[in-house]
């Protein structure tokens, strides 16, 4: 499941999307793949899980 959270970085507001099962996520309507995606709130992007796991360090 893709989790959506409101976060702050350096006192600025952002929206963070990530998979709760460590899948990479795809920005819907694009071919952009992310481990996690942090955006400006007004962008209102949506994400879906892929079938690719995030590599671990």
């Amino acid at each position, binding site marked *: 499941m893709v989790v959506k959270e409101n976060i702050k970085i350096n006192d600025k507001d952002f929206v963070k999307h990530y998979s709760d099962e460590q899948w990479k996520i795809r920005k819907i309507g694009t071919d952009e793949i992310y*481990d996690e995606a942090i955006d400006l709130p007004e962008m209102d992007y949506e994400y879906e899980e892929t079938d690719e796991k995030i590599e671990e360090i």
Partner: protein
Amino acid sequence: MARLRPNNVIEGKLKSTGYTGEPTGTIEITENGNYNIKQYANASVQVPQPSGTINITENGAINVYEYANATVNVTYNETLNALLEGTLRTISNSEITKLGSAVFYNISSINYINFPNVTSIAYQCFRNSGVTGFIYFRKLTSIAGEIFMGCNNLTGVDLGEITNVANNSFNGSRNIKTLIIKNRASLGNVNAFTTTPFANGNVGGTLYTNYGNETWYPTATNWVSLSSNNQYKSIQKNLIELQTLGIDITPYYEIVVNLPTQDISTTKVYFKETLVENEYQQWFYGSGEWEQLSNIHLGGNNGS
């Protein structure tokens, strides 16, 4: 153990002490001079303190260590997969187009690399290595994760034409301040810049790009979360002016700075590289005079 004399050439695979098809062995080089080593697999090359040139010409898992002033030219068909260890200081090759995984992992001694025709770099290629200063990969189209993770001597990279900055690419590289990415590139995760100036609001980093829409990076996914001190700029090559000045245009960029939060202001800055004898220098021109960014003394006799 094969012991080489200067100008010896080893051809043919080393005698196997392992299993068939994967020969192993040790080549010991004890005198200064030029050496050519061909067709090896899991050989170790021991070079105590020679100066000279070592040419290695085929794929394999090799260990090159214990040499001081030698210049090592590793010439593969196209891919460098060797895992190099020890005191390697400089490496330069214009034939290699692919760098394999972890080739320079933990090589703290290396300070100068030059692979001008590399198009792809695999996982952890330079992780925790001593690569120093600004590195140019102008033909690069793809990178895997963690390639420059923990490279504290690295100050900048030209990432060529990549379209994705892979996960953890620069994580922990505390002095990386300048990136050049020709086109639009997504950022896989914000950990790519953890503990770098790009993620430090008191320092900031600079991304140069000639991607046509200069407002894309400052609002793009993950890029937007980096330090508010970041400046996103655009590059355009202006070859005409440099050619008019009679300057070799190859190592130059003209950078037109378009700060997205201001009216367009134009500043012309240039990079150049010089190599005089064994002194490799990087220069920056942005305020009326050339400023030296780095000076690296190259080992070996030919300094290439």
